[in-house]
């Protein structure tokens, strides 16, 4: 039986949406089932995201819009999976559709009904802090923007029915069922939050000024219940002193034994934001370990201390009580530095609630026939198969498999999509819809510019006077309409924008909001849908380049915003419509790096029927994992994973392995790269459609530290692994020292994996020799997520001793009588401890391997300050580089455990296959063009063109002229600035367009704006 080319996704958070988009783009029909009335999930509730303080709504909105608009995606909100029948490849899924008592076809989201509805109830979306009506949308940017009646609270007054002009209200609507046929299912139901009220000692629910972190998050949000004002619920006063309490319900055997992984950084973020919202606020974070393990996390924590004065206090409060008169809160805690019992009075407390499996996970697991683990999360088949369940054809992704942050969830989603794509490879495209073409309207002579000034919640509006900027825009030449909008990128604004283009007959659109590097594609698409050529659109970046960098100078920022608007409008009037170019894509990929990440990506891409070249620098495949003693914290040996993968790669006819080879030159562009590979001194050039970089990481060798290389008994973790693997390692007393060369001034980042590596190896040592002693000297144990349980196991079952040291008093090591003596200041007991050890193991950070810089220059992709490759966007595009057609996976982006490496590799494979599957590439329209009237064939453009895209030809009139080969031209514009006769012009960056901006800016300044 043939498989069905459709996929069901359960849960429409960022993970579900990303999986859906990848699959829809690859040519599958996608149904997304969501229990609530809107897509967006948890991320929609957040104000900002760590560690960049990127506005959550702004990075989510474009994905929500894209999901809602995609012709291959069908949304089934207010729905739940009821039953499945059939088998992998051909499931029939019955979906229960809860009545929303409003016709989805008729409702236009005008909101009149909610205005007149007399019933107010606490809004679940605001975690009860704000109120909604009995007829409602959860939040203003809800997608799809359709109202819902909450029948439980509706009093049947009928007012809504009276005002609804669309006649959409159907109070008699019934629950219904619908069935869909799909080949595979992805579960991405995310997480719920632990009810902080269950910890009675903290008084959530009893004391007004004790909030959960989600409630506080809603309070920070500009579109939330307090409009972004931080205030005490008891009296509306701005707090002067706030406490954030970590691990509420997490790392707690009474509730959830695991670490919730995201709360340390979430609280850091909330404390920073609170300090911004309420200047002068003193914020303290009460923590057990600060788990700042991800890319840029430790730097974020450092900045919160240095720039915002956030205080971190290592303590787990035992109780919170309320002062009756002031409603202030008294926090009782043991000071772990001094052992004293202390009290602190604050006027607001925020509890970092644990993440827990979302409600109904057990039931869903039963319906689908998949497993959950002891903590109630869906469980994967094996550590090396993070998306597979025990049931073929059903996959899991995102936080429903365990706590996860946004980039991990987004990256994982692409990975799960890859699994589905290869599973249903033959059915691809069988049920996909055709993209609708909208006829472009004729362009009149006179520019008619429409301007939108985005508030971006409070991101822009809290600094720039957006009203005044909007009024100013109305005065600019050519502007026929200007308005202010809270979020320019939300779905309803896109619809509104399309209406306005028609209503005002706009032929140019300017949006003053954020950076075009993330949002231009969305707005261009909206213009296209309204029949306006997408190149008649221009952005003014008044967020990244203005409100965020001139926070304390609102007047100057407003003036700058007006200048930027004036420049954008001036340029817009000179813009011309452009046509994008369609090229055939080479349906093959190249993977650089033959470790687990590279092999996984190569195998997955090959499974989907594409040819892959796999390049490995070393003489054999396997990467660093091959050298290891065990590759997962559970103790699995590498042979069980690496060997089968090597075999799969070597046997696959679609994969061509190049050992001892490296990439030395890259030409061409996405879909049509030409990559030169050097092997044994000879170069060969291959055509390839896409490139995956998976070059991994390597361990830092701590020369000069702790007698390393001076005493043979001082080793690194990987050297210990080698010793264990070769059964050459013996010990009586082993000491492991964490953070050697990490989290210091030279290398501020946490290396993410060393704590779990240390625990894995400590357990292995104790298994090897139960009577031996193992000490781990650490600063903060970074055993995030489920690793926490191994941390506990190491202490309780294996008797590994953990001693916390302070950064300012690192351990010292001496050689005495052939033994090593390690002295460590124990901050809990306040004294020095001496440990006589025969082996000392240093946990050093992962760094980017040799040759990374060389590869960077070949591929022209960026790296961050710590040397790792830099993704296009930390949240939105964790697997892409900014250059189209080049992707990254695994530890070359930053240190990673193997499960994450595999997840990312599968994700990158999915990104590649989405790109290659159509067989063509739509390339930018920006190329150079020659005005043959003006060209004197001097040849200067041909000399400077880096791509040999310009030739001197003989024209039809028999004259010598320069001509651009558009397939080769990349539109840099270097030719134009050397042309002595202004005969060659890069489209969209014409001289007149640049000059218009210069003049617009500087001439306007004279007017004293």
């Amino acid at each position: 039986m043939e498989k069905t080319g459709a996929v069901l996704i359960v849960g429409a958070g960022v993970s579900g949406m990303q999986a859906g988009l990848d699959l829809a783009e690859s040519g599958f029909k996608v149904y997304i089932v969501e229990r609530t009335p809107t897509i967006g999930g948890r991320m929609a509730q957040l104000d900002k995201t760590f560690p960049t303080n990127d506005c959550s709504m702004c990075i989510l909105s474009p994905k929500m819009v894209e999901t809602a608009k995609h012709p291959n995606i069908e949304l089934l909100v207010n729905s739940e999976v009821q039953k499945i029948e059939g088998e992998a490849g051909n499931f029939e899924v019955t979906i229960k559709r809860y009545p929303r008592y409003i016709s989805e076809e008729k409702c236009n989201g005008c909101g009149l009904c909610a205005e007149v509805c007399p019933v107010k109830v606490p809004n679940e979306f605001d975690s009860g802090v704000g109120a909604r009506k009995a007829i409602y949308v959860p939040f203003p940017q809800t997608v799809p923007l359709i109202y819902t009646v909450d029948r439980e609270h509706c009093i049947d007054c009928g007012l809504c029915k009276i005002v609804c002009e669309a006649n959409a209200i159907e109070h008699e609507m019934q629950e219904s069922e619908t069935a869909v046929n799909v080949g595979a299912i992805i579960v991405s139901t995310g997480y719920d939050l632990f009810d902080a009220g269950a910890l009675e000692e903290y008084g959530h629910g009893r004391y007004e000024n004790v909030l959960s972190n989600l409630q506080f998050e809603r309070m920070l949000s500009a579109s939330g219940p307090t409009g972004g004002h931080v205030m005490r619920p008891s009296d509306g006063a701005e707090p002067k002193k706030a406490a954030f309490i970590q691990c509420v319900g997490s790392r707690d055997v009474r509730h959830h034994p695991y670490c919730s992984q995201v709360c340390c950084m979430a609280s850091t973020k909330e404390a920073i934001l609170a300090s911004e919202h309420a200047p002068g606020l003193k914020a303290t974070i009460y923590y057990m370990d600060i788990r700042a393990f991800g890319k840029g996390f430790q730097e974020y924590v450092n900045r919160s201390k240095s720039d915002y004065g956030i205080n971190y206090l290592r303590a787990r409060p035992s109780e919170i009580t309320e002062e009756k008169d002031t409603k202030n809160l008294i926090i009782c805690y043991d000071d772990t530095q001094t052992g004293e019992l202390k009290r602190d009075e604050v006027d607001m407390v925020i509890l970092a609630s644990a993440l827990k499996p979302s409600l109904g996970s057990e039931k869903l697991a039963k319906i689908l026939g998949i497993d959950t683990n002891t903590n109630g999360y869906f469980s994967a088949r094996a550590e090396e198969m993070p998306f597979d369940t025990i049931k073929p054809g059903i996959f899991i992704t995102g936080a429903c498999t365990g706590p996860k942050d946004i980039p991990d969830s987004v990256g994982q989603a692409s990975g799960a999509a890859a699994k589905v794509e290869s599973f249903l490879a033959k059915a691809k495209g069988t049920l996909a819809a055709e993209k609708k073409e909208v006829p472009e309207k004729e362009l009149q002579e006179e520019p008619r510019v429409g301007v939108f000034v985005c508030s971006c919640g409070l991101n822009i509006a809290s600094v720039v006077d957006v009203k005044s900027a909007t009024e100013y825009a109305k005065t600019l030449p050519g502007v026929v309409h200007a308005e202010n909008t809270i979020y320019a990128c939300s779905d309803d604004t896109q619809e509104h924008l399309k209406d306005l283009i028609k209503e005002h007959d706009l032929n140019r659109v300017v949006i003053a909001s954020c950076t075009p590097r993330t949002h231009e594609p969305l707005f261009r698409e909206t213009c296209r849908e309204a029949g306006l050529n997408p190149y008649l659109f221009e952005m003014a970046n008044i967020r990244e380049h203005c409100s965020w960098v001139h926070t304390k100078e609102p007047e100057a920022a407003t003036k700058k915003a007006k200048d930027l608007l004036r420049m954008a409008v001036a340029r817009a009037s000179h813009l011309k419509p452009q046509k994008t170019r369609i090229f055939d894509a080479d349906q093959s990929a190249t993977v650089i790096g033959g470790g687990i990440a590279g092999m996984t990506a190569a195998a997955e891409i090959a499974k989907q029927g594409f040819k892959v070249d796999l390049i490995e620098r070393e003489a054999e495949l396997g990467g660093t994992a091959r050298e290891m003693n065990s590759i997962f914290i559970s103790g699995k040996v590498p042979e069980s994973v690496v060997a089968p993968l090597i075999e799969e790669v070597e046997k696959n006819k679609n994969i061509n392995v190049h050992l001892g080879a490296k990439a030395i030159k890259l030409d061409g562009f996405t879909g049509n790269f030409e990559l030169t590979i050097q092997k044994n001194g000879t170069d060969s050039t291959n055509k390839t459609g896409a490139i995956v970089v998976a070059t991994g990481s390597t361990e830092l060798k701590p020369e000069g530290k702790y007698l390393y290389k001076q005493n043979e008994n001082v080793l690194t973790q990987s050297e210990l692994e080698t010793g264990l693997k070769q059964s050459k390692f013996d010990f009586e007393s082993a000491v492991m020292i964490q953070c050697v060369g990490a989290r210091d001034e030279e290398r501020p980042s946490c290396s993410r994996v060393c704590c779990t590596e240390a625990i894995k190896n400590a357990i292995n040592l104790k298994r090897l020799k139960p009577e031996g002693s193992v000490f781990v000297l650490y600063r903060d144990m970074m055993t995030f997520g489920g690793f926490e349980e191994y941390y506990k196991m190491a202490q309780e079952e294996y008797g590994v001793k953990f001693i916390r040291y302070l950064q300012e008093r690192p351990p010292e090591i001496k050689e005495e009588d052939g033994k090593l003596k390690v002295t460590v200041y124990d901050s809990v007991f306040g004294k020095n401890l001496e440990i006589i050890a025969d082996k000392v193991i240093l946990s050093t950070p992962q760094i980017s391997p040799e040759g990374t810089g060389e590869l960077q220059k070949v591929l022209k992709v960026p790296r961050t300050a710590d040397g790792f490759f830099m993704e296009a966007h930390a949240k939105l595009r964790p697997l892409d580089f900014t250059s189209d057609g080049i992707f990254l996976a695994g530890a070359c982006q930053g240190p990673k455990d193997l499960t994450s490496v595999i997840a990312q590799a599968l994700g990158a494979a999915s990104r590649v296959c989405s790109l290659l599957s159509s067989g063509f590439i739509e390339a930018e329209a920006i190329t150079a063009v020659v005005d043959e009237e003006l060209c004197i064939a001097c040849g200067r453009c041909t000399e400077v063109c880096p791509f040999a895209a310009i030739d001197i030809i003989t024209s039809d009139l028999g004259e010598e002229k320069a001509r651009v080969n558009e397939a080769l031209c990349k539109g840099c514009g270097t030719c134009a600035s050397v042309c002595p006769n202004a005969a060659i012009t890069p489209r969209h960056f014409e001289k007149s367009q640049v000059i218009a901006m210069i003049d617009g800016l500087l001439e306007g300044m004279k007017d004293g704006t």
Partner: protein
Amino acid sequence: MEREPNIVVFACNWCSYAGADLAGVSRIQYPPTVRLIRVMCSGRFDPDFALRAFAKGADGVLVMGCHPGDCHYVEGNLKAEVKVNMTAKLLDAVGIDPERFRLEWVSAGEGSRFASIVKEFTLTLKKLGPSPLLATPNVQKSSIAEREQVETGGS
């Protein structure tokens, strides 16, 4: 209030504009003196752009591109360097201190570098005072402006 200099920046799309974005995302504060004009590559920089900007009253002009070796268009940034050097001589000839005009390399990962360049350049311009073309709206300025009009066809 002290007069703030106004600086026109030509920044390449891939590195320097992205570096400025990163400064924003990281909330690194810098003086509100710069206005960026995005071009695909610093190689697009045309001496006329700088002349025009000074003629219209800019106090300073910055050209920003990827570090040598990082250019998305192979070596557009090096081509920019040649043109920048030439332009500096031209500016000197018409009485504009070459210190008012410079080329800087800023990568996509260098938000803080972007901010410190702006800070430092702003200070330099404050020391130099307003552009001489602003102070003496006479022969020099109009001659440059006229030349511009001819070159750009009055656009």
